[in-house]
């Protein structure tokens, strides 16, 4: 009986023994593959999750878009749904590419054919714009051996260059600049110099009738000389780390009315191969720089009824490609506080030669201030010359600049005489990033000459 009971067990044991090896191999295989399978499953699950997540995000975007359209045009809601279903002739939904970072607002979808006869024709979305934003910025490290100055990293201006093609003839242009330091550099406690503020440096509605007549309304860079209208608030465009002294911005001590609020007309003058151009401007002019804490650009209110007028003429002869020579005359009337009114006349001449791989800029400016009741005219001459040549990605440059203002100058007695050379090298690390290293030797009246070194990383995005 015992044996009979154990017989089936024995058989089972034998069977198991015979199968044992096979079972072991299979078990080993499963043990090895199990993690892989788990991993694969996990990977697949992750992939599925990601896909689902992406699909969910897309659905959310589409739903929000539908809700937005329903809010503006209730009758077009169902057509938006049809738009998302219908393929290839449907609207392209590609992402905006630089410099066109405009929000993607799809036009109203056309209705299905069987409903077209009961609905009005599709209308274009009035909310659609062609706003483009391009950014410029820089980060600097600079230091001088001048007593009282420190070696410091500093954030340059973050410039959002905004354009919008309103129509064939009209265009909006603006420069919104985020910069550290208040609007007026002078007599401001040092702590406030680290504060960031925002300025609308340019704010223009441009009208282009043809090559001979263009208008710009708003806040613009005054067409005095060459540099002010060639370079705005972007160090990436400039060869050097900073603007010439002559063309420093008002809020950093510049002596020229860099910005103006008014109307500017420009265009070509039919002159054949001479390539004559004109600029005629009228605006509020700059504040009298008195007191020094005021906003130097008269954005909203002119301190007097007298308008600043500027007229510039320049030539770009066909014979010498890249050459531009011109002059300008600016006149305004200033009313410094507690002082006689001052007639301001600024004369400028320039001769620049700019090629893609070479540039030579030369400008000379004469600022004349004639206070009322005095026969004396205070002349403040200034000039700079800048030369640079590109060797591949490297562009060495040299600049010499000079300003000589009288100590009794009624408007900017603080300027004095400043001059000195600058040597530098610009390296374009990419199409959008430039690294500059510049050495400055500054000679100033009343203070000891000092050296300065600036390392700047300028970029555009």
């Amino acid at each position, binding site marked *: 009986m015992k044996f009979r009971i154990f017989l089936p067990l024995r058989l089972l044991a034998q069977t198991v023994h015979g199968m044992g090896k096979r079972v072991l191999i299979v078990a080993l295989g499963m043990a090895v593959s199990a993690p892989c399978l788990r991993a694969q499953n996990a990977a697949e699950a992750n992939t599925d999750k990601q896909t689902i997540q992406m699909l969910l995000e897309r659905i959310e975007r589409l739903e929000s878009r539908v809700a937005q359209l329903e809010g503006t045009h209730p009758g077009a809601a169902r057509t938006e749904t049809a738009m998302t279903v219908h393929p290839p002739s449907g609207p392209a939904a590609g992402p905006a590419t630089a410099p066109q970072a405009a929000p993607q607002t799809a036009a109203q979808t056309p209705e299905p054919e069987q409903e077209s006869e009961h609905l009005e024709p599709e209308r274009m979305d009035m909310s659609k714009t062609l706003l483009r934003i391009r950014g410029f910025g820089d980060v600097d490290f600079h230091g001088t051996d001048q007593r009282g100055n420190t070696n410091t990293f500093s954030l340059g201006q973050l410039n959002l260059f905004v354009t919008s*093609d309103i129509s*064939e003839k009209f*265009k909006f242009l603006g420069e919104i600049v985020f910069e550290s330091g208040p609007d007026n550099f002078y007599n401001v406690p040092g702590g406030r110099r680290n504060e960031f503020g925002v300025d609308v440096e340019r704010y223009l509605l441009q009208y282009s009738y043809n090559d001979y007549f263009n208008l710009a309304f708003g806040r613009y860079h005054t067409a005095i000389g060459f540099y002010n209208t060639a370079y705005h608030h972007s160090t990436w465009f400039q060869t050097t780390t900073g603007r010439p002294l002559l063309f420093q911005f008002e809020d950093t001590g510049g002596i020229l009315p860099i910005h103006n609020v008014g109307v500017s007309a420009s265009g070509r003058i039919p002159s054949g191969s001479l390539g004559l151009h004109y600029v005629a401007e009228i605006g509020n002019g700059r504040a009298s720089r008195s007191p020094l804490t005021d906003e130097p650009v008269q954005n909203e209110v002119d301190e007097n009824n007298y308008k600043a007028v500027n007229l510039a003429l320049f030539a770009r002869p066909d014979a010498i490609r890249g050459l531009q020579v011109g002059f300008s005359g600016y006149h305004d009337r200033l009313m410094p506080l507690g002082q006689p009114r001052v007639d301001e006349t600024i004369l400028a001449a320039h001769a620049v030669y700019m090629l893609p*791989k070479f540039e*030579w800029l030369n400008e000379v400016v004469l600022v004349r201030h004639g206070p009322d009741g005095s026969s004396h005219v205070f002349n403040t001459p200034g000039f700079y010359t800048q030369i640079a040549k590109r060797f591949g990605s490297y562009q060495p440059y040299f600049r010499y600049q000079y300003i000589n203002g009288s100590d009794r100058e009624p408007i900017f007695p603080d300027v004095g005489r400043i001059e000195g050379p600058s040597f530098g090298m610009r390296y374009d690390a990419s199409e959008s990033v430039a690294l500059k290293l510049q050495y400055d030797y500054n000679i100033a009246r009343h203070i000891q000459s000092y050296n300065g070194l600036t390392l700047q990383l300028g970029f555009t995005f």
Partner: protein
Amino acid sequence: MRRLLALLTMVGAAMLLLEVSPGTAKGDPSPAAQASADQNLAIIVNQTNTIDDITLKELRTVFLGERSHWPNGRRITLVMMDPGVPERKAILRDICRMNETEFSRHFLQGLFTGEVFVSPKTLSSPTGVRKFVFNVPGAIGYVRASDVDGTVKVIRINGHGVDDPEYPLRFEARDSK
């Protein structure tokens, strides 16, 4: 300091002279290259455009955005092909005298200063260029002479038609590299 200034001025003048020196500037097609040209690049405009002939210098002002309107008042819309396309390389070399980076930077600066009103449009194929020019009255573009059809008008350059042996714009074999 004065000596330094004088030295730098002389260096600058020398560099200036080197840049201004006449002769074969970079980008000018050599007579040898012209002689061995494969195809001509046709400059095409809309059928309603009144321009029939243009000088190379005027063409340059158009392609650099220095002109914004045609004589009939329509705004100039410049049509370029994708960067790297042989036709675009030939145009940049022979008309604009710039490379790709310089061309991009030139238009970016022009838009930045406000001198250029509209940046060029970029299309990926000759057919696209042709259709764009057909649809836009103020458009100007370029295609190979063999890609021209009856929907667009081909303008002469310096009085030379696209079939003339002295036509200045040629697309050469090396541009395809």
